[in-house]
């Protein structure tokens, strides 16, 4: 299952390729219909995400909401620190300003009565969030990975792993029966989703080192890393998730709802394909739609923080001239306890459990606290004296302080605090990116934790690996056993970037398969195997390599068996 951006890039590449092939009036009209109804086409292209959000994403959304609120509060807090810094530096530059006592006391009050007490609660909330995330349950694994029976799977997993071609075919027919342009655009979008997942999941799995059912956490980070790569590098894909949400918003922007016709088409298709097997408890599609929009909104709420301003040049020159030595460097980040990351081995991410990064963040926070409380001030003196009295004596005292070396120390201290908080916030956000809660930014992509997913690896044959024993080590390429039997049919080569999903020299790509599928659907025929929707169901997680059909475990078997004991499912079987 690929991410939002891979799906959107698939829709674009199929539309472009299809547009280049249209010749007759009917295909031209279809092309125009898809182009004129981009929201519906996009909605169809994201059908698997809509199903995911119909219930499975409950924990993720709750935690993401909590993280988003925390990020907002951290941002506000750091803004307040920046404001105090700015005020203090202004007063140090010119202590003869009017109302100097009032102004100084105001920042002193902010420091002592807002920033210091608030810090503890902020860091407490941060630790609490990470403690909650520790179980990694915000990523819901594929039911098959836990050997659950099909009726216990989520609708997302059913759609991706059972009767996928039959569902796309059924939905297409129902959309044509409906006859509206919106329904048609939606149906072509669903077909694009089918191709996007079939091809894109294979690229994703090869960077992960196995299937989603075996490596759910790596799979998520891979999906988001590939999505971020696409957003950064592919033409026309520079969309924020807010823009994507806007595209998907149909009807009232205040309370968008899934269009009734689309809901009906979906429900009828699900009932026809899966209901006959007793799976009649249909997903809440309205909720899926709302939650998907909410998810996109939350993803865009982690805006980068403004980079701290350096100390004003003239103040910094005063600091240097004062001759005071600021030996505040020895206080650094204490080492994490167990296990210590090491740079040995093939890649150092292989040796680091993800939560070591939480310890980094917490340690950075502790250093910030030292600056905030003045614990690491020279001679243990309070670097933020006050408040001063509102009279002549007070004015004289505050001016004396603001022209002293102590105030220069405080300026330097506040700068260190600001930088430390900035570092703490970014380290925390980085953990959320490692955990697949938030997309990496463009600037994160060169880091090995994300880069490993945006290029087919060179270092070894990236065969499918069985699940890892210690799930905390998911940031490293799996060192577990190779899953058998191997299937050697791959369109991607070491060094390939995600753009090869959409076009590649062997034409085993989204634009080729997708445009042919659309053309076949339009002409009422079948596309070439295995994209013949009337006879083949591709496993849309590509979980047994490229373009393999839906399968089931042999009776009594487990996905942990090696070799995997399975049989290919018949066309209408689930």
């Amino acid at each position, binding site marked *: 299952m690929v991410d939002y951006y891979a799906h959107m890039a698939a829709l674009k590449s199929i539309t472009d390729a299809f547009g280049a092939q249209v010749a007759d009036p009917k295909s031209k009209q279809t092309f125009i219909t898809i182009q004129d109804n981009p929201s519906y086409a996009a909605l169809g292209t994201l059908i698997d995400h809509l199903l995911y959000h119909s219930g499975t994403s409950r924990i993720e959304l709750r935690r993401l909401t909590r993280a988003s609120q925390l990020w907002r509060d951290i941002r506000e807090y750091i803004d307040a620190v920046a404001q105090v810094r700015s005020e203090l530096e202004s007063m140090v530059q010119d202590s003869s300003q009017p109302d100097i006592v009032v102004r100084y006391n105001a920042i002193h009050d902010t420091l002592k009565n807002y920033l210091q007490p608030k810090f503890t609660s902020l860091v407490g909330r941060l630790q609490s969030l990470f403690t909650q995330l520790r179980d990694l349950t915000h990523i819901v694994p594929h039911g098959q990975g836990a050997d659950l029976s099909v009726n216990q799977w989520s609708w997302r997993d059913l759609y991706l792993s059972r009767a996928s071609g039959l569902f796309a075919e059924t939905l297409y027919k129902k959309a044509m029966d409906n006859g509206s342009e919106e329904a048609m655009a939606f149906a072509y979008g669903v077909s694009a989703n089918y191709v996007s997942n079939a091809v894109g999941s294979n690229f994703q799995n090869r960077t992960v080192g196995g299937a989603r059912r075996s490596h759910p956490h790596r799979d998520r980070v891979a999906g988001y890393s590939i999505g971020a790569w696409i957003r950064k590098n592919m033409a026309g894909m520079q969309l924020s998730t807010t823009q994507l949400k806007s595209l998907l918003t149909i009807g009232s922007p205040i309370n968008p709802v899934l269009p009734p016709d689309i809901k009906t088409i979906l429900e009828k298709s699900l009932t026809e394909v899966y209901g006959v097997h007793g799976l009649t408890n249909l997903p809440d599609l309205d909720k899926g739609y709302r939650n998907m929009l909410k998810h996109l909104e939350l993803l865009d709420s982690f805006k980068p923080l403004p980079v701290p301003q350096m100390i004003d040049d003239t103040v910094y020159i005063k600091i240097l001239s004062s*001759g005071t030595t600021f030996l505040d460097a020895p206080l650094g*980040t204490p080492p994490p306890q167990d296990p210590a990351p090491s*740079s040995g081995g093939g890649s150092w991410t292989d040796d680091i459990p993800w939560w070591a990064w939480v310890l*980094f963040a917490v340690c950075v926070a502790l250093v910030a606290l030292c600056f905030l409380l003045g614990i690491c001030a020279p001679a243990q003196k309070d670097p933020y004296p006050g408040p001063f009295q509102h009279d002549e004596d007070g004015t004289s005292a505050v001016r004396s302080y603001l022209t002293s070396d102590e105030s220069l120390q405080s300026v330097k201290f506040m700068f260190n605090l600001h930088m430390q908080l900035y*570092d703490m916030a970014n*380290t925390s956000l980085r953990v959320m990116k490692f955990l697949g809660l938030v997309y990496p930014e463009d*600037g994160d992509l060169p880091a090995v934790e994300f880069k490993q997913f945006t290029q087919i690896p060179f270092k070894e044959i990236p065969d499918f690996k069985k699940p890892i024993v210690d799930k905390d080590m998911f940031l490293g390429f799996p060192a577990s056993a190779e899953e058998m039997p191997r299937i050697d049919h791959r369109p991607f080569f070491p060094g390939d970037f995600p753009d090869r999903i959409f076009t590649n020299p062997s034409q085993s790509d989204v634009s080729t398969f997708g445009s042919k599928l659309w053309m076949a659907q339009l002409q009422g025929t079948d596309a070439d195997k295995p994209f013949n929707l009337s006879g083949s169901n591709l496993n849309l997680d590509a979980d047994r390599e490229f373009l393999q059909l839906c399968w089931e475990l042999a009776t009594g078997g487990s996905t942990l068996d090696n070799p995997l004991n399975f049989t290919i499912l018949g066309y209408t079987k689930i």
Partner: protein
Amino acid sequence: MATENIKTSDSHPEKDANHDRRGDDRDPNIDPYLVIPYYAADIGVRPLPATVVAWFCESIFIDGVPHTGAPLIAGSTVMISAMVKNAGVKPAAAYIRFYWLDPTTVFTQADLADGFIGQGVFPVSIPGSSGGVMSVVESPAIAWEIPDDIPPHICLFAEVGCPGDLETWSFNPVTDRHYAQHNVNIVHAMPFETTSFFFSASNPLKETALYEFQIRPVSREALRFLEKQYRAKAIPVKEDTISLYPVKAGSEKNGQKLHASLRPNEKQLFRITIDMPELRNNEFLAVEVEQTLTSTREEQPSTGSIGVLFFTESEREE
């Protein structure tokens, strides 16, 4: 070109024999570990190896190219930047500061305050960036309007730090990877004449200290480095052609090695002399002066150095 090596350095710490002996107590396996690299494989081992020219950091750039020591034009505006390497495992928001000083061996806070150029914040990534194992980035370029009274010879000084790897305020590029200097002075002199060059030395300590000052020809390894930098041929310097003088009323003592007792922040002016031989246009002589602490209660001597390159004076058109 050596600079291109720094810009594209992918060196791996494990390939360096000194990986575990970087000269400070920071742990690159935990924190950011910033270095203004003196050479492509520089991972922050300090003191700098003896084969490295401590007064010539090729990571300090003017207008995007390594500074050469050529005089800067008063009133013009240039962009100053530096390459910074993160040899640790954590990314960081780093900050950089630049300074200029009159030729000097040692940097004091007061001198740096007088020569403050500017500062900036920038992100440094972690190993894995740019397809390599080490992350090397160019700092933001700071606009610097060259002062009207700037002398023909100056020293450029850079300082880097970040949360988790704060600058240490030692201001010593030889022993501290947070600092780097371009302290090369290009002098054009007439052949068969004795030429002088002046520099100052200071005592950055809070107590009076005795320093040794030694002038000497630049080592063979260092000459090879300089030949590459200037695409010119280094001519060996005869030791009896160089001398060092304290510039002090009543003081006539000179030689290759001098001692001076300096009070805290006291500044002492020195003069280098060299008897210039006849050189071709693409030939030069190189000498360096090293300042070494000889009496201190501290364990580590504080050192500094400065380099001077002598080219022949071309005939000027009337």
